[in-house]
């Protein structure tokens, strides 16, 4: 028991644990939209795009949250804009914009050199640099997003299920999509430090997919995905300390484990429910 409680003595661990748990819930919530829209690849792509902004801001000496944030939001809105044009599919738009941004980040680091451990931390996650300000930021962001989802629930549901009819009914689907892309970029940014860009996509996709296997209700799916995401963050962080592995892989492996268990238990019914979320 002492061994289990020992990491809580360290402030950096407590901060990291809160950020991982709250960010897990946030990514789970946002992941429902991503998964049901068949845009699972976007989390993967957007996190890589943000890496470009991270590299540029690190080299320019700009605050990385600000630099990578502006970069990420610009990438997200660009993807959203390109996707709404009929000639280019969402997957191709994401592929082009995000890999180019990731490549730029790698090139900048190659030309100007890596600075300390930030390069590895950005790729795979580290809780060492998580401070009180990060904790406050993620908690405030999660409260804002949860509030927006609650108040905009009907708009989000209609725009996600049937955007054409929603638009014809006066729902501003373009605004809903842009807002969700903004939330997605901000969530990835807030989570990047703990999870790393290479693993964030899993925290978006796994909780929502598991939740979909467990329920046929949109509202319950939102609550379940947030809960599963938070559980992955909490358990993953503790395992990370106990097994002395990076926080990112640990959190993702817990999520993968939950997925495997639910996949087995729910059987064909769960797989039928989740069939539509694979795209």
């Amino acid at each position, binding site marked *: 028991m002492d061994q289990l409680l020992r990491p809580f003595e360290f402030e950096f661990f407590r901060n990291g644990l809160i950020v991982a748990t709250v960010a897990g819930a946030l990514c789970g919530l946002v992941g429902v939209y991503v998964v049901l829209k068949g845009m699972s690849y976007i989390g993967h792509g957007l996190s890589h795009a943000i890496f470009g902004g991270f590299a540029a801001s690190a080299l320019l000496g700009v605050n990385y949250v600000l630099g990578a944030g502006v970069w990420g939001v610009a990438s997200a809105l660009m993807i959203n804009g390109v996707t709404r044009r009929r000639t280019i599919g969402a997957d191709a738009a994401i592929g082009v914009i995000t890999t180019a941004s990731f490549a730029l980040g790698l090139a900048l680091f190659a030309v100007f050199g890596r600075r300390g451990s930030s390069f590895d931390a950005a790729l795979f996650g580290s809780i060492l640099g998580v401070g009180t300000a990060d904790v406050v930021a993620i908690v405030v962001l999660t409260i804002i997003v949860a509030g927006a989802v609650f108040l905009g629930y009907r708009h989000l549901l*209609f725009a996600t299920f049937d955007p*054409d009819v929603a638009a014809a009914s006066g729902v501003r689907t373009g605004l809903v999509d842009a807002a969700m892309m903004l939330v997605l970029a901000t969530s990835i940014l807030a989570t990047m430090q703990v999870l790393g860009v290479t693993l964030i996509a899993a925290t978006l996709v796994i909780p929502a997919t598991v939740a979909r296997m467990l329920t*046929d209700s949109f509202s319950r799916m939102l609550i379940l995905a947030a809960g599963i995401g938070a559980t992955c963050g909490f358990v993953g962080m503790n395992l990370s300390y106990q097994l002395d592995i990076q926080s990112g892989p640990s959190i993702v492996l817990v999520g993968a484990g939950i997925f495997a268990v639910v996949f087995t238990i729910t059987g064909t019914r769960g797989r039928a429910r989740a069939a539509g979320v694979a795209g």
Partner: protein
Amino acid sequence: MMSQQRYLDDGALVRLRGVSCRYDRDTVLDRIDLDIGRDQFTGIVGPSGSGKTTLLKVLLGTMVVAAGQVRMAPGLRVGYVPQVETVDWNFPVTVAQCVLMARTRGRVLPWPSASERRDTSAVLDRLGLGGFADRHIRRLSGGQQQRVFLARALMGDPQLLVMDEPTSGVDATTRHDVLHLLDDLNRAGTAIVLTTHDLNGIASHLPHLVCLNTTVVATGTPRQVLTPEVLERTFGARMEVLEHAGMPVVIDEHAHLHHRVVPLRKNAS
């Protein structure tokens, strides 16, 4: 409840004058003139790619027109029933939740009010879906899914109902039921515009048709427009037209040609 009915000066709900639409450089609608009256029941027929769905989007106000004028009655309430294939029927919603989407702009709280629950129940009963409120939408037949979309559209108490291929993929009995239902709605004062590929099963039963192939080829009653000449100009294939029980019956020996758009000749008369 009496709702305030407002129309354009001559009683029309929607009026299009010289409307053209383009996707990038492709013209999909060219100089369309069309009036939708308050009691009208109109079918739009034409081959795939002839602009039928785009025309519906213009009526819905969700398509930016490249040229021309679209006028709608102030405060016009439009209900839209898309093709059932346009959504993911595995999406996590029940029948009642799907129907309630029509009230998205009415209430902020996620859960339905007592009056919303009553209205949902009433519209589901009216469409023969009374026992299905809590059923997941995946567990419905094609005809039932169609009726769920119709129920959602009716929840908004529309003056104009716009339907895209409402009977595609349903059996003859369901098609018959849908037609009767729409006829009842029309008699009760709802204007209806629908697109259809089905010339004999649907179009020939409607009071008014618009033959479309990027531009309006002809408008009129089925007897006026379901003629070999008009059908050839619309579908690009010669079709024989017989008469059965006072209604035109189109003999289509070149059904595969329906999938081809007739190139629009400039300055065609």
